């Protein structure tokens, strides 16, 4: 644990980061910006796992291992999302959310 910093302050920080990500997810109109907002949300949840593990159960490893898994899944998701975005750009010529309306060719 960080000396002098309580768990509530860190959870406040991660909640603020989470809702900034949600705000970006709602307001942005570009697919890559939406991807960036999703990364913010995932990162704040990873910090939550780590903080709760460190402050409440410091002798266990569960939160740490789960955060490693979340990071791996996030990296996989980003790779797939980038592939899909590039394919969409090749087919429709734009990456705006409102113009990706056809699912199948």
């Amino acid at each position: 644990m960080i000396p002098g910093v309580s768990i509530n302050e860190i959870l406040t920080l991660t909640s603020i980061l989470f809702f900034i990500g949600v705000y970006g997810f709602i307001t942005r109109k570009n697919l890559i910006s939406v991807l960036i907002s999703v990364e913010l949300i995932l990162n704040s949840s990873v910090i939550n796992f780590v903080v709760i593990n460190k402050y409440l159960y410091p002798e266990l490893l569960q939160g740490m291992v789960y955060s490693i898994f979340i990071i791996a899944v996030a990296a996989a998701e980003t790779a797939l999302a980038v592939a899909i975005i590039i394919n969409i750009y090749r087919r429709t010529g734009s990456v705006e959310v409102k113009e990706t309306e056809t699912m199948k060719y």
Partner: protein
Amino acid sequence: MEKVIFYILAIIMVASAVAAVSSRKMLRSVVYLLFVLMGAAGLYFQMDYNFLAAIQLTVYAGGVVVLIIFSVLLIQHIEMELEVAGKYRQTISALICLLGLSVFLATIYAHPFEAAGVTTTTTTAEIGRALLSFEKEGFILPFEVISVLLLSVMIGAIVIAKGGMEIERPLMKKNDPEKILQKNTKEKTEEKIPEEKNRCLK
């Protein structure tokens, strides 16, 4: 001292997260995201999770951000400014987010957390044993599932991004002004010709 460092990191993270979701230039918002991820790595270093901080720096700051930058450079013109949502929609979504944040904070501050006072250092060897043990509190099954997931994602990304057949681009054609002009004139001439034929027949 550590409290001061934590607050500096928190301010950097929140400010760059706000900049990342509100910047109108794509590449800049990716770089602000990089600052947020590095701030998170700093938090892990402060909490004495060195291995996790190293993973955060290599996978997130090294892999994910570089992937996003690649896609930005492949797709977007750097100087182009993004379209943003209207003021009405921005205020509505900001209000919704503030509402959710207040619910979160009320729950967090109402719950009595019983922080364990002890601090133990986790070594990398313990993490490796926990990941590969198949006894109680072992994680061998999710570990193998993750490896299968990574393999399938690799194959899937290659198949999706490769494309393959040549596809028609209806939107590109629609947006191209010259082609629209040509199309209109062609249609007009085509319309005229049958009329003349009809007249001749009459």
